[in-house]
């Protein structure tokens, strides 16, 4: 099922390859000249000369530019049969697409081969159904969406989610990922998360909801990243987590924002919170445990600008102390 589609992708790649290299060479000239001298193009194999130097002009062409246009009336408004988008470069097409939402972009990608390519290349944000069978589509999807930097994988509770293989494959395909959101990806373990951390060195924001890889999975990412800035964890369980399992940074924690919601094992993050010297925002919502010590320490950070607490046990005095320092 997968194999024929890979070959299709390759075919697509090669067929566009020629066009792309041609286009890359002429794009400097494209705007002002390609349309203008459309009717000269047949006689002008010199498009392969990459000459962005405007001082190297052939004088005779100035004359053409200046006076030769009368011949071009045939090209003017080449009739209603034309494809308007033939005359606009990929950047402009991407410029239109950027104003469309994901649903319209999806539609537009089916318009034609060129639109498919341009839409894929210009897509940065992608949200995928993370059911187990997604694995079969990962190669072709990420061959198309090769510029994705913000990815969400969501699986509903009734389905089996993607596993570590898919997580690692995706992380290999999307090395430029800056944001990842995992929701209900119950089959992913700390092994998949470690793969993510190793492959996606630019990951700045990680958001986890209803996953089962536990503290170990979070630790794998946080400990192996020098750039992660935002961590949001909600309803995380860890079947493999032992008592007292703890997340801690690698000593130079870059985290600026930590948000923990509805965690039974919230105390596992205390060490991470205390170790995050650049922390600006801390949100604790519905996390059981005693947070006095953590908040007492965090309250001394001068970087901190926001503490948000809901349904958290602590001493009122300490809260006041912490808040007073913000």
């Amino acid at each position, binding site marked *: 099922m997968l194999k024929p589609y890979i070959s299709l992708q390759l075919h697509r790649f090669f067929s566009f390859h020629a066009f792309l290299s041609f286009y890359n060479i002429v794009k400097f000239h494209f705007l002002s000249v390609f349309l203008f001298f459309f009717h*000269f193009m047949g006689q002008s194999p010199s498009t392969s000369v990459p000459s962005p130097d*405007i001082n190297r002009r052939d004088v005779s062409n*100035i004359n053409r530019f200046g006076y030769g246009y009368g011949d*071009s009336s045939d090209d003017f408004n080449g009739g209603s049969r034309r494809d308007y988008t033939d005359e606009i470069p990929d950047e402009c097409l991407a410029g239109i697409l950027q104003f469309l939402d994901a649903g319209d972009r999806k539609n537009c990608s089916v318009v034609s081969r060129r639109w498919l390519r341009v839409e894929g290349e210009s897509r940065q944000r992608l949200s995928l159904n993370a059911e187990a069978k997604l694995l079969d589509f990962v190669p072709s999807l990420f061959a198309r969406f090769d510029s994705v930097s913000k990815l969400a994988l969501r699986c509903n509770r009734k389905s089996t989610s993607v596993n570590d293989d898919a997580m690692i494959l995706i992380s290999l395909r999307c090395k430029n990922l800056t944001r990842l959101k995992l929701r209900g990806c119950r089959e992913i373990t700390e092994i998949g998360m470690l793969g993510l951390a190793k492959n996606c060195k630019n990951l700045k924001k990680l958001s986890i909801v209803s996953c089962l890889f536990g503290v170990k999975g979070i630790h794998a990412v946080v400990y192996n990243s020098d750039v992660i800035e935002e961590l949001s964890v909600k309803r995380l369980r860890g079947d493999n987590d032992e008592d007292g399992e703890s997340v801690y940074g690698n000593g130079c924690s870059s985290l600026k924002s930590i948000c923990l919601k509805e965690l039974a094992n919230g105390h596992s993050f205390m060490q991470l919170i205390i170790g995050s010297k650049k922390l600006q925002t801390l949100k604790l919502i519905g996390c059981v445990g005693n947070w006095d010590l953590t908040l007492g320490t965090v309250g001394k950070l001068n970087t901190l600008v926001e503490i948000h607490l809901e349904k958290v046990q602590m001493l009122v005095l300490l809260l006041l102390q912490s808040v007073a320092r913000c």
Partner: protein
Amino acid sequence: MAEEVSSQMNSLSISETNPSSSATISLVSGDDIVFKVEPTIAKEMETVQSFIDETDGKITTIPLPNISSHDLPYVIEYCEKSIAGKITKEFEAEFVKKLNNEEVKELFLAANYLNIKKLLDFLSQVIADRIANKSVEYVRRYFGIENDFTPEEEAKLREELAWTFTGVDPDDEDEN
């Protein structure tokens, strides 16, 4: 060769002694109508300006064979507003109201050809608005695009696309 009349925008700028700085520029539409505009207008049109610069301002008549006398006044109007710093939401709303689909597309091509970035951005938004929430077939018809997928490819593509979510990701809404 023709291509070497390059579109290296902004690589040259008019010096104060440039003789063209005070002369009126004549823009000749594809159907041979001459529009006289101030040099400041030409400056908004990077393609035109770079041509003027390349010829040291000696040539002030610029043929624009791809732009009709029907569309050129719209472009000029937009550039005039732009120079006056009067591109407001209200102006743009009024401006776009006057345009039918054909005109929007023609102006988009003109803006691209003349390399007027503000107009191009604005028209990108206009076109996006006009193809939003429409079928694939509508988008093809809108631009005159031929479907070059085989039915098998298209089916495969749609199967693949079924894995992408289109809605806004519900941030914290509970579904799990």
